[in-house]
Structures are given as C-alpha cells and as structure tokens.
C-alpha cells in the first residue's frame, strides 16, 4: 500500500526488481525502481545529508508535488510523505541537519517543509517561478538562496517574510549550485556568475561562458582538500564545460567535452544533439555523472578526462539525477523534459526514478 495512492501496480511496498521483460525500454539498466513515483515529470531529486541516518530521497515534480521516500540498504523504497505546491516544483534541497526540505516552485514561492511535523510554510516569494533553491550554512549565518526567472537571487532567513538580501541577475536564473563558500548561478543568455558567501553573499566574478549554447545545469566540484574549486556547466547542446575558478593554467585546465549525442560518425546521418539535463559529482570520488535528453546517463572522470561509462538508452529523457551523501546510490529520473516540445508529451506515460549502486562504477581512472 502506497502512501501516495494509486499509481500503478507498483503500489506494493518494496523492491521493484520488476521482471518487466517486455520489450519496453523503460529500464534497460535494470536499476531499482522507486515505488509510487510522481504522476508527472520529475524536475529535481535530492538525497538527505549525512546528518540523517539512512537515506531519504526527495523528488519534486510537475504534478505540483514533492515526495519523500526512505531508501533502505536493501534497495527497498518506502514512500514517506508528500507536500504540495500550487505549481510545478522545480527544485528541492535539504537543510544541513536533515530536518527540513526546501522546495521551489512555479507558483513563485519557496517553502520549508519540516519533516518532523510534516508541515510546510512559505518562506520565499518571487515575481516569477523560483527555479533554484539552496540552503546555505555559513559559520555566521544560515539562509535559503532562491534563484528565479524574475532575474533575482534572493536570500531568506526562514523566519522573516522579507529577504535578507536581493542580488540582481543579468537574466533569468536557469540553474545554480552551492558549496560553501562558493555559489554559481547560470542564467539565460549564457550568463554565468560566481558568488562568494563568506560573511555575506556577494558577487565574486562574472565569467564569460565557456559554452556557446543555453545553460542548463551546473554543479560545483571540490579539490583534494574538499574545497570548492570549480564547476561543471552543461548546455542544451550536448556539451559540458569544466571550469576552474583560479586555475594555474586556464587554457590547459579548463576544457569542454561533448556528450549525449547520437552516434554521428556515420557520415550520412546528421548527429542528434541532446540537452544535458543534470550534472552531479560523486561526493567521494570526485567523478561526475551527466544525464541527458537522449535518455542516457554517463559517468566521467574529469581529471583523467575520460568517460567511465555510458548507459543504455532509456525510452524517455532523463530529467534529473543525484548521488546520496556517501556516493553509494545514484538516482536518476526518467521522464519527459519537453525537449521535443508539446507534441511528444504523453501524460499517460509513467515517470520513473531509478536507483543504481554507484560505489564501483564511479571510481576514477588511474591518471595517465
């Protein structure tokens, strides 16, 4: 019995090592399917922080809901709770202590969901859909950072309805990431801004985009000392740029690589180029995963500059991904991302979230 009501036969609690042996390609990688998945496209995924024992997964969807599952070591997924917005949920994140979940929605608000009480209150307001949300825990302050299509980046103390700070963005916020003390925001028109968050958030640098196409996703990576040192930026043109903030040799250290493209080495067929929908770094190995509109995920080692693995092709785009806190689980969502427009949207098509064991596959290659 699923807390989330009838979604399909998968209402049974438990592992779905479904033996769907039909020719459908919805899970060619034979990964664990999360039960009671949302009814519309999944826009964001987030695992609980290490402060919580166990693993809890949060997913926000275009059905206006945010769902929470407990993921047990056996692979069993147990739906736990759900909250609603009045518009599609575009981003979710956890507080550092794992007691709250922050959700950002097209209804122009962001909410704080207290999991203990299962109550959600509004903590932020924008003039347009809120696209990104991150919890910042600094030594001298804590706040929620929201990026919106209203071209502002706002910082909220959850106890007040007025933002602590409002920073103007050059354009609509498309994606953001934050690892203290650094935050990166990528906007429309290929805008790219880095912020430093010490003492208080301030703009650190505007960067000329290393990519030639619309920015779609960004993820910060850390150096060997666990300090944020750069970011990976994905665009709609099947390409990811690895960019260091202060590299010793930018020309050599920064680079881009192509991904999520159909096989185009055949001279006749034009190559299909897909958007990179999400990038996530493995918390332990520092290797990264990318997921694309082509319905594949790939693992990469940015230091060895090699690809570690590419998955089989799912029958739907992969719209979101994330790693759990220790990197053992890689979650990815299979649902339509609108890459082919309205015509290819099938509301009847099931949306999935898959979990994969990521402990081995993301080990870095030995440096050449």
């Amino acid at each position, binding site marked *: 019995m699923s807390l989330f009501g009838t979604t399909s036969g998968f209402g049974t609690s438990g592992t779905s090592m479904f033996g769907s042996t039909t020719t459908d390609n919805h899970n060619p990688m034979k990964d664990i399917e999360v039960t009671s998945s949302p009814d519309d496209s999944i826009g964001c995924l987030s695992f609980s922080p290490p402060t919580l024992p166990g693993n809890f997964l949060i997913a926000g969807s275009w059905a206006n809901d945010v769902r929470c599952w407990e993921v047990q070591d056996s692979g069993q997924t147990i739906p736990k709770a759900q909250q609603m917005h*009045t518009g599609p949920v575009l981003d979710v994140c956890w507080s550092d202590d794992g007691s709250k979940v922050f959700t950002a929605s097209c209804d122009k608000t962001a909410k704080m969901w207290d*999991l203990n009480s299962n109550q959600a209150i509004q903590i932020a307001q924008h003039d347009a859909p809120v696209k990104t949300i991150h919890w910042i825990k600094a030594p001298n302050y804590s706040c929620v950072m929201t990026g919106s299509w209203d071209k502002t980046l706002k910082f909220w103390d959850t106890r007040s309805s007025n933002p602590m700070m409002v920073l103007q963005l050059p354009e609509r916020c498309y994606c953001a990431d934050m690892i203290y003390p650094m935050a990166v925001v990528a906007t429309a028109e290929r805008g790219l801004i880095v912020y430093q968050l010490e003492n208080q958030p301030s703009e650190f640098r505007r960067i000329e985009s290393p990519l030639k196409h619309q920015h779609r996703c960004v993820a910060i990576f850390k150096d060997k000392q666990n300090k944020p040192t750069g970011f990976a930026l994905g665009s709609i043109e099947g390409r990811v740029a690895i960019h260091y903030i*202060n590299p010793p040799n930018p020309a050599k250290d920064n680079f881009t690589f*192509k991904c999520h493209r159909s096989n185009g080495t055949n001279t006749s067929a034009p190559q299909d180029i897909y958007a990179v929908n999400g990038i996530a770094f493995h918390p332990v190995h520092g290797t990264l995963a990318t997921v694309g509109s082509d319905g594949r995920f790939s693992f990469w080692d940015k230091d060895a500059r090699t690809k570690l693995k590419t998955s089989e092709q799912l029958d739907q785009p992969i719209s979101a991904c994330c790693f759990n806190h220790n990197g053992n689980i890689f979650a990815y969502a299979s649902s339509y991302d609108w890459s082919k427009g309205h015509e290819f949207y099938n509301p009847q098509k099931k949306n999935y979230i898959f979990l994969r064991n990521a402990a081995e596959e993301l080990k870095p290659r030995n440096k050449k």
Partner: protein
Amino acid sequence: MGRKKKKQLKPWCWYCNRDFDDEKILIQHQKAKHFKCHICHKKLYTGPGLAIHCMQVHKETIDAVPNAIPGRTDIELEIYGMEGIPEKDMDERRRLLEQKTQESQKKKQQDDSDEYDDDDSAASTSFQPQPVQPQQGYIPPMAQPGLPPVPGAPGMPPGIPPLMPGVPPLMPGMPPVMPGMPPGLHHQRKYTQSFCGENIMMPMGGMMPPGPGIPPLMPGMPPGMPPPVPRPGIPPMTQAQAVSAPGILNRPPAPTAAVPAPQPPVTKPLFPSAGQAQAAVQGPVGTDFKPLSSTPATTTEPPKPTFPAYTQSTASTTSTTNSTAAKPAASITSKPATLTTTSATSKLIHPDEDISLEERRAQLPKYQRNLPRPGQAPIGNPPVGPIGAMMPPQPGIPQQQGMRPPMPPHGQYGGHHQGMPGYLPGAMPPYGQGPPMVPPYQGGPPRPPMGMRPPVMSQGGRY
C-alpha cells in the same frame, strides 16, 4: 604562431583542414578519424582501403570519408599523410595561410579545448575568439585619427587627446576579452612577442600604467607613449593591465585571475555588452565550428565587419574539429529568442525558441492553474481531522501556510503581477488549500496510511 613557416611545410590533413606538428601525428590522426571503420573500428591506411574493407568484411558501402568537411569527402582519393593531396588544394591552402598570417599578426588565437575520448571526436569549443574582434576594430580607427605619424614624436602631443576618447571606449571592450584571454594565453603570448618584435619593447614598458588607469594617466603621459599605445598597445594592454610589469609577456597566466578582480566596476557594465558581443558572436562562432559554409545560410547573423575576415581565417587556422560528428553548428541568433537548431551535420533536439525547456512547459495552461488538482479542497478536509490530531497547530489552515511573521498573505504577495506573460495570476488563495497532506491522494486507502503516519512521523523526531 609567430613562425613564418608556411603551412605547406607543416603537415595538415586534407580531409578536415587540421594542422599537425608532425607528419606522423597527421597520419595517426587520419587513421583514427578518417580511415577508421565505423563498424568494427579497424584502422585502415587510406580512404580506398577503408572502402574496400567495409565492402569485403561488412558488405557495406561507404560513400564519404568520415569526419571530413564537405568537399573533402572523396573516398576514392588515395591520400596518406601529405601524399596524394591534389595540387590545386595545396595551392588553395597556401593562399589561405598567407591570408591568415597577415591577419593573425593582430589577432589573438584562442585554444581549442579538447574532449574526453577519441570517439567523442576532437577538440571542441574555442573560447570566444570573437571578442578579439572588437579590439581589432578599435585599433585601426584609433591609430589613424590622431596619429598618422605613428613613430614620430611630434605627433605625440596631438596624439594624446585623440587617444583619450579612443581609449575609454576601448576599456569596456577589453575586459570581455580578458576572461576570454586566459584560455588562449599561450597563443597570445606568441603574438604579442612578434608584435613587440615589430614595435619595440619599450612602448610596452611605458604602456603599463596607461593600461589600467588611462584616464588618470592622461595628463602625465610621457611623450612617446601615445602613438605606440594605440596600435601595438591595445592587444598587449590586455595583459599589461593585469600585470603592469615589463615582464608581461612572461606572466600572462597570473594576471588573469587578478584581472577581473581589480575591475569589478568595469566588469559589471561589461557583462551585458559582452553578452551582446557574444550574441553577435554566435554567428561567426557557429561558422567557426564549421569551416563549411553551410551555416551562414541558416544563420541570420549580420556579422560585424570584422567577422567575415576573422571567420575565414579561423576556419583555416583553428583546428576545428569539424567533423560531421562534431560541431552542431547550431548558433544562437542573438536576443530574438530563436535557435538555429538544424545544420547539415547535426540537429539540436530542442525547441526552436531560446528559452529553457521549463519555461516553455510552464507556459502551458495546464501548469498554470492556480489551484491544485480539483477535488483537493473537499478531500483535504476529512483527513485534516486525524492529521489535526497529530499536529496541534491547525487553528486556521490558511495561516499555517503563510509566513508566520507579518503575512497578510493575499495582500502582500497576492499583489505581485506577472513578470512573465501567462504565469499564475498572482493569487495566494491556494494556501487556503491547507496542509497539502496528500489531499488528492486521499481517495481510497489513505486512511490506514494516514494512521500510520503519526508513528512514522514522531519516531525519534526523525520524521
């Protein structure tokens, strides 16, 4: 490159116009990129060899050399390294190189960054070579007006005033180049060296101060500065600005990090203009990716005057990986939000408008309904009972949803109007929907789970 060697001496690949240091490397490249069987990945030695292999082993015909630029895909031409290249193509290449070396003296090259593995094809993006263009555009006009006698000392004093107006406009142009510079610094170094070679090191040293602080320095500008400054000065200045030391040429990497920092006031206004430059740049960049000129047909970019020339030379110089597999050549045509999604060799799987997928989707009426799924309100009530027992603070549901402090919900937030067309017409009534504890899903079975939840929730405070 500052070398005067002609390209004909330096090996290049006939199929894709790329340069190589060594013929051996060129051959390796050809084997890997052009003579590799796409079915079994066996590397052959020549085009005809590949064709024969495919026919005999896989029973498949191929009609074009893989990863070759259009016009150079002839499978029947027996080319091996530099041997077998038709004479007319050699001549054409030589001509292109001569043109390029003329232009490249003034220009800075950007390095192409490389990709992950071979199969994903060769070097990809170049970091905004275009911003260099505006510089180019600046130099000549600046040099001309007030400084015809460039080296001439008498020309200097009169040169200073004309320099003034010229320089500030240049400033904004500089920083956008800055960030773009780092990637290609080692190339730039070569250029500036040759530059200095032509124009004497001395002006460089003198130029430093004017670099970052042109306006303030104006009055104090030593004679002999201005004339050289505009022409040779401009490009080297970008480095000089940051370094402000005679040893510029050797220290470009260092300043790049420093450069943006000292100039925040400059970078802010620059970003939008850089954005425009980029927007315009997209055209040439698109064509830059493809030396093939099929994109210009699709690109609607009206390039700045300097672009065509630059594009042409970059086409030959940048070892663009314009294999058929590579560049999408989909250029984003500036602000008028459309993308060029299709080109001869590739197709961007993305709607044409240059807005994000989420924005596009959110415009649908289906996703703009303010109220959650119909039926929630009524359904939501009964469960609230048990939940209410579980969660004491339920006096007024609307309030619960609102911000605790001053939250006249509708008043304060309801007034916000749409920044974007068609978005939820402001209301906050939804909050009245109450604790969205799965109201829509309460239909059938929920009760038991609902009952379950409290224990789950209150366990150790975890949930």
